[in-house]
């Protein structure tokens, strides 16, 4: 009996020792006591990081986490203007040559200096390998880059393009050549850390990944873009939650300090009134819109598009669905946030169902006995976006009031993307999260073959204006051309841009010092903001 008991005790001890050996150990480079040295900032997100290679990733979580490691040349201000980040200056040598001057005090976390060679190599590698990220899309008119000194990069363009220097600067993330080059194609390199871990030049560097639940980044002790030359917090942890509602629970329970995703309109006031939670407003840099597919013969007629535009109650959408948290664009793709470009003398399409009916009649449509015109249009929208799903209903109701039948077809994301790509819709409803550069936006949206030309518009007059603006390097002349193009878009209803949504982010009142940047992509989670955030000092 005693022997059996002794055996059981020995067995139990062996199990405990074995379990202890199996438990994870702290990775190299982890702070020994982060709480004593700035603390840990815990941030909630709703998706896993899919790619640690910033040249491939497209998801929000990918951008947020890798954005803390890999710098951009330029950032963006609340008015959409570009601001220095890694680059201190930028411009054009001539119409087909651009330049960037970069900081000389940035280093990679392995101690190597970040030089113009890293910048030029990154651009050339992206052009060569065409990874699926946003950077590739900016390189259409880019030919090659060259480091002409340790801090200066010059880029050769295939044709004059007055926007490309800023767009590459903003969308291009710079990676360490000495880490990426030996791995071959940048389109295939997973950048999963490997034996030596990650190498970055941002305020933090990834040290630990717990797939499906958290990403831990430790402070890079050399980040000259913030006061003091390094981030305030010792550690940042991104935690994954299934949706915004669970993120809010986690914030309220103290499990996280900041929610990276913007709040749904209905939650903003509620959270603002919650103890221990603060809500910060972030400027939106995108818009919500409807486009009318001109491949559909009825919608190819201007009066029909105008009728549909006048059938929408825009105020109701902004006040009811968005609870007043949106700004009218005055039906222009040049949003008010783009202060240099926006024309505030414009007017929004008036909500006037009678006028909409008259426009249909002037186009030759005759109402039936039920008061309806003998046409119907199928409108697609993404079901995962509750705001668009709600206003789609209001748009349908407004059209019905004017006698026009809309069939709503909300679908999950992949179906929606496929329908959009195939032009399988009459009316497309959706939104763009960030439209920082009007020139690029117009080229993609309104030139024939543009990647987001969802109207399928091919108007020679509009195309000529856009192409002239692209070759115009004088800012005032360019703005005048863009405003002329925007007026044409509005008059012909090539796009029905309805509002820019203001964004609201929630964080614990125990943290402060965030630096807001426009759009959900940057918001409070941009690298300078996260590096500047710090705990509120305790009151003595």
């Amino acid at each position, binding site marked *: 009996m005693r022997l059996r008991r002794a055996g059981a005790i020995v067995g139990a001890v062996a199990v405990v020792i074995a379990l202890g050996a199996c*438990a994870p150990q702290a990775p190299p480079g982890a702070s020994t006591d982060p709480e004593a040295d700035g603390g840990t900032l*815990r941030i909630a997100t709703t998706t896993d990081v899919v790619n640690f290679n910033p040249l491939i990733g497209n998801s929000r979580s990918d951008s947020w986490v890798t954005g803390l490691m890999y710098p951009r040349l330029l950032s963006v201000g609340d008015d959409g203007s570009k601001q220095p980040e890694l680059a201190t200056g930028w411009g054009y040598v001539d119409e087909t040559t651009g330049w960037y001057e970069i900081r000389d005090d940035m280093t990679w976390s392995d101690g190597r200096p970040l030089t113009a060679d890293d910048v030029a190599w990154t651009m050339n590698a992206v052009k060569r390998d065409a990874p699926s990220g*946003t950077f590739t*899309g900016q390189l259409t008119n880019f030919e090659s880059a060259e480091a002409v000194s340790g801090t200066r990069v010059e880029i050769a363009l295939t044709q004059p393009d007055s926007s490309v220097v800023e767009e590459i600067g903003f969308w291009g993330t710079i990676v360490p050549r000495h880490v990426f080059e030996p791995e071959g194609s940048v389109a295939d390199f997973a950048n999963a850390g490997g034996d030596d871990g990650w190498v970055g030049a941002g305020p933090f560097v990834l040290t630990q990944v717990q797939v*499906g639940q958290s990403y831990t980044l430790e402070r890079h002790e050399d980040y000259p873009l913030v006061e003091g030359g390094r981030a305030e917090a010792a550690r940042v942890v991104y935690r994954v939650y*299934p949706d915004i509602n669970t993120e809010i629970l986690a914030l309220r*329970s103290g499990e996280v300090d900041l929610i990276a995703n913007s709040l749904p309109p209905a939650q903003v006031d509620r959270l603002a009134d919650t103890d221990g939670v603060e809500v910060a407003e972030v400027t939106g840099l995108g818009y919500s819109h409807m486009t009318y597919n001109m491949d559909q013969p009825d919608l190819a007629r201007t009066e029909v598009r105008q009728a549909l535009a006048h059938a929408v109650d825009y105020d109701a959408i902004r006040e009811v669905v968005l609870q007043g948290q949106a700004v009218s664009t005055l039906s222009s793709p040049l949003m008010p946030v783009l202060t240099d470009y926006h024309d505030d003398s414009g007017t929004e399409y008036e909500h006037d169902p009678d006028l909409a009916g008259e426009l249909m009649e002037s186009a030759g449509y005759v109402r039936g006995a039920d008061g309806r015109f003998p046409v119907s249009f199928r409108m697609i929208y993404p079901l995962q976006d509750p705001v668009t799903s709600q206003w789609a209903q209001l748009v349908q109701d407004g059209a019905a009031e004017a006698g026009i039948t809309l069939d709503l077809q909300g679908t999950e994301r992949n179906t929606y993307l496929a329908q959009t790509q195939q032009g399988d819709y009459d009316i497309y409803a959706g939104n763009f999260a960030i439209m920082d550069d009007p020139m690029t936006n117009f080229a993609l949206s309104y030139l024939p073959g543009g990647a987001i030309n969802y109207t399928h518009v091919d108007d020679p007059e509009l195309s000529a204006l856009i192409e002239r603006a692209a070759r115009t390097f004088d800012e005032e002349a360019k703005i005048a051309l863009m405003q002329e193009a925007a007026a044409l878009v509005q008059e012909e209803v090539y796009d029905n841009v309805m509002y820019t949504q203001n964004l609201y982010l929630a964080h614990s009142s125990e943290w402060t010092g965030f630096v807001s940047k426009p759009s959900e992509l940057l918001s409070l989670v941009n690298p300078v903001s996260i590096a500047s955030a710090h705990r509120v000092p305790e009151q003595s």
Partner: protein
Amino acid sequence: MSIALFVARRLGRGLVTILFAVTVTFLLLRLLPGDPALAVASPNTTDEAREALLVQYGLDRPLIVQYVLYLGQLLQGDLGTSFTQSVPVVDVLLERLPWTLLLTVTSLVLTVVIGIPLGVLAAAHEHRFLDRFVQVVGVTGQSLFVPSIGIVLLLVFGLALGWFPIGGATGDNVYGAAWYGSVVAHLVLPAVSLTLIQLGSYVLTMRGTLIDALAADHVTLARANGLPYRRILWKHALRNALLPATTLIGLQLGFVVGGAVLTETVFAYPGIGRGIYEAVTQLDFPVLQGAFLLLAVTVVVVNMLTDIAYGFLDPRVKAS
């Protein structure tokens, strides 16, 4: 029939089932609307770049060619490479598998440990208050939906009482012995959710079969011989009644796996289920194919083991 032949037949059936599951998964994924290149590419990607991605993924080839190549890969033990993460599917699954195993095994054990005694309790008190109460609990459990239970548990025990974490499987940067405490704390709410939705089946099955067993001739004989009721219940009736419950473990496994997908999603538990959810949104075919294959193999193997165990426990099955 010899044991070897019996086992060989079950193995053969299992392999056919797995091939069927592999084929159906392969075809169903390709019937999904959209394409993986659209799902991962940025909106400003050109058509040429999207097509290049499809070529890179091998999706430009005829379906039959893709299928044959996929089967060839499988036979070599290669599950392919994730479209979105550019890493082997095996690595993606192995990172998540331990959490799913921990969650499902814990909830299965809890279900059996709680469900069988509750079923016995109900059968022993047939048509009395306790029986009716257990039946109501069982039927309610069967009608519950994981997300509904999950939200209630999170609100009550996560937010209001603060006893358990809101999401994940461990805390941040917890190491050594403390890591185990963190794992247990994170496991409680998902495991309770998954247990609650399965419990009803076990309780009601156990109750029904035990009531039948208690009416059997050998039990009547035992009663007539004056054996104590507790001994009759636990030794004579329960042994026979346990056979259907054994089968239920195998049958329920598919249900547990389905429940795990929802449970892991609601609680941000980093298992295969949550991985499937994310892979569906990204149309990551190789990861989905690998995950469904893994789940199919698990269900088939457990069912096969249940069949074989049943064959040993009840010689009539083997004979048939």
